[in-house]
Structure formats: structure tokens, C-alpha cells
């Protein structure tokens, strides 16, 4: 890896814990214990400039929480985030927060809830520009909004409409246009196409890839759909119950998955062209995140679990060029 090129985004041991205890009165009267949800429990990764890191996992794995940690919607309970060399969360809290927010933006999953239904598209897309004082002249602002809409394949005339006049795919494009208004460097995309139909998804993914190429954008792409991840990512991180279990470049991960959970996930995906071939059925379900298993979180479902797995939590180690958190892989049992 070239030494001058410092990764744009560096996450180190990021963790976020939520207090989901019952209200104080209930706890006292019913003698209920405090309940903590370790949504993210020590996640570390780098994202190089211009690249896409995809985070995959099932419900409760914490990928959405990671997304929100990266844009400053949450503060980490532990760990640090560096953006272009500076401490991101310190910046978010300080006066430099505004400058940072110009460089980091987010695209959300639900096209229906991510646009204010009472605002005109012009105001929605123009808001970041107005907020940051980037363009003050109204005519110039309108022109810029038109340019942004065109860059995502919509017409400038669309700015005079309301969100409900658009389809899901078009709304997602408006979200992208809004995210690009401040010319950010880093985009966090939280399942941007999960709520869209296949043909619409194709359009949106193509636009995102085109924009990445044209503007040198860096993406963190969250998804549960491994096929989509294969298409968009350069590197893939697999998460399970708040932890990263495997982190590898795309080709390596899909060709040669190491972690038993990754293998299980890949096996579980319905294959379109292998019709009729049964998949290896998957064991069990994701455990309750409030009560994770001790040791390796995956051990109850893992065919290779031994005593060490049940007691000792595996660290994310660099094994044969791939980062894996698994005792079995470390011990060569896989």
C-alpha cells in the first residue's frame, strides 16, 4: 500500500452502547436491572480515498449504527474516528464541525422518509448550500440545484415539485443530489437501494458508480444484499452482533471466504442460475443483541466451535492477507 496515501477514513475500535433500560421508576419498583445494548463493539477499518468499503450483515449486526457513527449522528462510547487525519468526533463537537459536515454526507434507506414531504425539491436539495452559506444568490442557487438534479438523471424542472410526486427510485436520486450539494468527499450510504425494485436499483447503483468515478468519491456502503455488495464495493467487511468478523477485498472474500459466518451467508443466498440445487441449511438465528453469547458471538451457530470459542472473544487478525476474527481460522482448523 502506498505510504503517502493515508486512508481518508480510519476507524479504530469504534463502539457504541445504548442504554435501553426501563425508566428509572420502573427499575426501582420492579427491580429490573440496567440493560445495555452493545450495538457496535469494537470495529476498526480503513477506507482509502476513492474506494468503496461495504459493510454487510444481518439484523442486529450494528452496520447502521456504524454508518451513523461515521457521520456524527451518534457519539462513540469508545474508540476513535479519523477523517483525513483529524479526529472526527472532536471536530463534530467543535466549531470545525460545520466544515467537516460539508465533506461527509449520508444517503438513507427509506426513500419515502428521507425527504421532507412538505418541502419543495428545490428547497430540499438547496438546503445544504444555504446552511453552509456556499451560495447566497437565489438565482445562482436555483441554477446549482438544477445542475445537481441533472447529475442524477432528473430534470431541473423537477425542483418545483413535491416529493410525493416522485417514485421511490426518483426520490432516492433526489437524496443523492442533496448529499452531493456540498461537494463532499465521503458518502455514507445506508442501504440506499434496499427499498427499491430491481430495475430501479440498477439505475441508482449505476448513477452512484458513475458519480464516484467522476468526482473521486469515497463510499461506505451498508447493505444486507451480498450481490449488490459484490457489484459496488472494493473491500467488504462482514459484521455480526456488533463486531467485524471478516474484512477483505472483494474478490478474495467472494472467492475464498474464511469466517464460518461469511461462508454461511454466502451459502444462504438464493442462487439464480443454479436452479434446483439445494443450499446448505443455516443453523439457528441471530441471538438477541441484548444478551450476546460469551466468547465469539457466533459460537452457538458455528459448526467449528470449540471451548476456546465459547470463552475467548477472537480478535480481528491479519491472516494470509485477510482480516478475520475467528479462532478456527487462526488455528488452521478451517
Amino acid at each position, binding site marked *: 500500500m502506498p505510504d503517502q496515501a493515508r486512508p481518508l477514513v480510519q476507524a479504530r475500535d469504534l463502539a457504541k452502547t445504548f442504554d435501553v433500560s426501563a425508566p428509572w421508576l420502573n427499575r426501582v419498583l420492579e427491580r429490573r436491572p440496567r440493560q445495555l445494548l452493545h450495538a457496535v463493539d469494537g470495529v476498526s477499518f480503513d477506507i482509502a480515498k476513492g474506494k468503496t468499503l461495504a459493510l454487510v450483515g444481518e439484523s442486529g449486526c450494528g452496520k447502521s449504527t456504524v454508518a451513523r457513527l461515521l*457521520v456524527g*449522528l451518534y457519539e462513540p462510547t469508545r474508540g476513535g474516528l479519523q477523517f483525513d487525519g483529524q479526529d472526527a468526533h472532536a471536530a463534530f463537537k467543535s466549531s470545525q*464541525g*460545520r466544515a467537516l*459536515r460539508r465533506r461527509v454526507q*449520508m444517503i438513507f434507506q427509506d426513500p419515502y422518509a428521507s425527504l421532507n414531504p412538505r418541502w419543495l425539491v428545490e428547497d430540499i436539495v438547496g438546503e445544504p448550500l444555504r446552511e453552509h452559506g456556499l451560495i447566497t444568490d437565489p438565482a445562482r442557487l436555483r441554477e446549482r440545484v438544477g445542475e445537481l438534479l441533472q447529475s442524477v438523471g432528473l430534470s431541473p424542472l423537477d425542483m418545483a415539485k413535491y416529493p410525493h410526486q416522485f417514485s421511490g427510485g426518483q426520490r432516492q436520486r433526489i437524496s443523492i443530489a442533496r448529499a452531493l450539494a456540498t461537494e463532499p468527499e465521503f458518502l455514507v450510504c445506508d442501504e440506499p437501494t434496499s427499498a427499491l425494485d430491481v430495475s430501479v436499483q440498477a439505475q441508482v447503483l449505476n448513477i452512484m458508480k458513475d458519480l464516484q468515478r467522476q468526482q473521486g468519491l469515497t463510499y461506505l456502503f451498508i447493505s444486507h444484499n451480498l450481490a449488490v455488495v459484490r457489484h459496488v464495493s472494493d473491500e467488504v467487511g462482514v459484521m455480526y452482533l456488533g463486531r467485524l468478523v471478516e474484512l477483505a477485498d472483494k474478490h478474495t472474500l467472494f472467492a475464498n471466504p474464511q469466517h464460518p459466518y461469511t461462508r454461511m451467508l454466502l451459502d444462504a443466498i438464493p442462487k439464480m442460475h443454479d436452479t434446483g440445487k439445494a443450499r446448505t441449511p443455516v443453523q439457528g438465528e441471530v441471538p438477541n443483541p441484548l444478551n450476546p453469547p460469551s466468547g465469539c458471538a457466533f459460537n452457538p451457530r458455528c459448526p467449528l466451535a470449540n471451548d476456546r470459542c465459547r470463552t475467548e472473544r477472537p480478535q480481528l487478525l491479519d491472516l494470509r492477507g485477510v482480516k478475520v476474527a475467528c479462532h478456527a481460522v487462526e488455528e488452521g482448523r478451517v
Partner: protein
Amino acid sequence: MKQTLLAWLDSDIGHSFKSSPMAMAAAFIALVCVISAVFAPWVAPHNPLDLTTLELADGRLPPAWQAEGKLKYLLGTDDQGRDILSALMYGARISLAVGLVSVLLSMALGVGLGLLAGFRGGWVDGLLMRVCDVMLSFPPILVALLIAGVGRALFPDAHETVAFGVLIVSITLTGWVQYARTVRGSTLVERGKEYVQAARVTGVAPHRIMLRHVLPNVLGPVLVLATIHVATAILTEATLSFLGVGVPPTSPSLGTLIRVGNDYLFSGEWWITIFPGLMLILIALSVNLLGDWLRDALNPRLR
């Protein structure tokens, strides 16, 4: 104006309005009452507040269609010779004014507090909700009486405006809770939505998010509440005036008229109290029905 009216009539809500005879009738009646009240000085045949125009000899006349009635006084006169019809219009004017102002203030207070509670959460929310619970456990009239009584005790030689002020404050303070609760609930829902998160990611200040993003989206149910609240406010004012702790006697509202007429009910001069009563019912009913229709029209599930 005409364009927007035509456009509105063609919309979903307009269509719902056109297909509901009750809504149209209610709107018509309410409109008639409001116009006659607002334009009372020009529309009313007489001015009941001007003592110089009164003729004592014309006192206690029954409505025009009865034997001793005079066409000049369509609904009869009271003991002082004041025309009941005109008194109705002037009285409705007062009632409506007090009702509307109270509702607007209630709305402002309730929506503001509800937004704050929903947005900030934590102890602010907890505190506010407990205050609401406490307020709701008192019957509204009792609260209004209490405040009116305190007001009178504080300002014994009440100037007319002060009396009005106390009245409006008391009605306002009984009505704000419903707005606060509704808006708080809606705010909690909207706060979790992604467009609010998007605004936060962009770096918009919390108070701006609250006012510019969330507020427009929580006002819908408030409109319905306010419409129905107008009726309640008018009735509350009438009750307070009937009890003698409402509007000052120099500006009789419908409640005052009912009270005054009550004394004459058993001596046979029923019209002095019945007609103000009917007017009150008419206003309250029509506004209430309008509110009902509006709630159903705005409810996406029932459509």
C-alpha cells in the same frame, strides 16, 4: 382567489367536502353566524348597546310571529327594550372573538410546548407530560373558574380589557394540553424520520430543524383539534359568562344573554333566553361538525 378555491374544490379534500351534505350545511351555517357576528354593527337591525335607542315601552315584546310582536323586533325584546336578534349578533361577536383568540393562544402555547417536549425528550418531556396529566385531572370549567376568580381578586376594579384578558387566559389555560400531547406524539414520530437525520447530518441547528422541518409536518391534526376547540371555547366562555365570571356586563356575550333571560323564563318571556341559547347551539354544533368532517377528510386510512 377564485383559482385557488376552484383548485381546492377539485382536490381530494374538496371532493370529500362536496360529497358530504352535512359538511356543506355545517359550513354554511357557521359562515352565516360568523358573518352576522363580524358585521353585526352593519347587519343588525338595531344597536342593543346604545342606550339612547332603547324604548322602554317596547320592552318584553314577544317574537314577531306572535300576537303582540312587532315586525321591527323580529325575535322580540328583553325587559329594557333591546332587540333580541341584534343582541344575538352582537353577543355572538363577543363569543366568537373570545373563542377564536383563546384557541389561537392555546394552539400557540400547546404546539410550542409539545414541539419542545417531543424534540428535547428527557426531563423536559417528562416534566411537561406530568404537568399535562395534572391539568387534565381538573375539570376545565373548574380551572377556568379558579383563574377567573383569582383574576378578579387581583384586579377588583377591573377595567374592561383586563376582564377580557383574564377570561381569555383562563380559557387558554384549559385548552392547551390537547395540542401539546398531540404535537409531542407527532414530533416523536417525525424526529425519528430520516429527513430529520439528513438535516442533522447537513449540520442544521436543532431549533431550525424543529421549526422548519418538524413543525409543518405535525400541524395537520392540530387543525382538526383547533376547529373543534373553537366550539368548546365558545361554550366555556358562555358558561363562565352565565355564571357571571366571564365577560363584563357592558359587553354581553351569548352566555350573558342566556343568564339575563333566565330570570324571565318563568314569567313567560321565553324568547329572551331561548334564542341566545339556540344561537349558541347552532354555532357550536356547526363548528363541531365541520371539525368532524375535517378529521375524517384528513385521515388517510378512511379515504
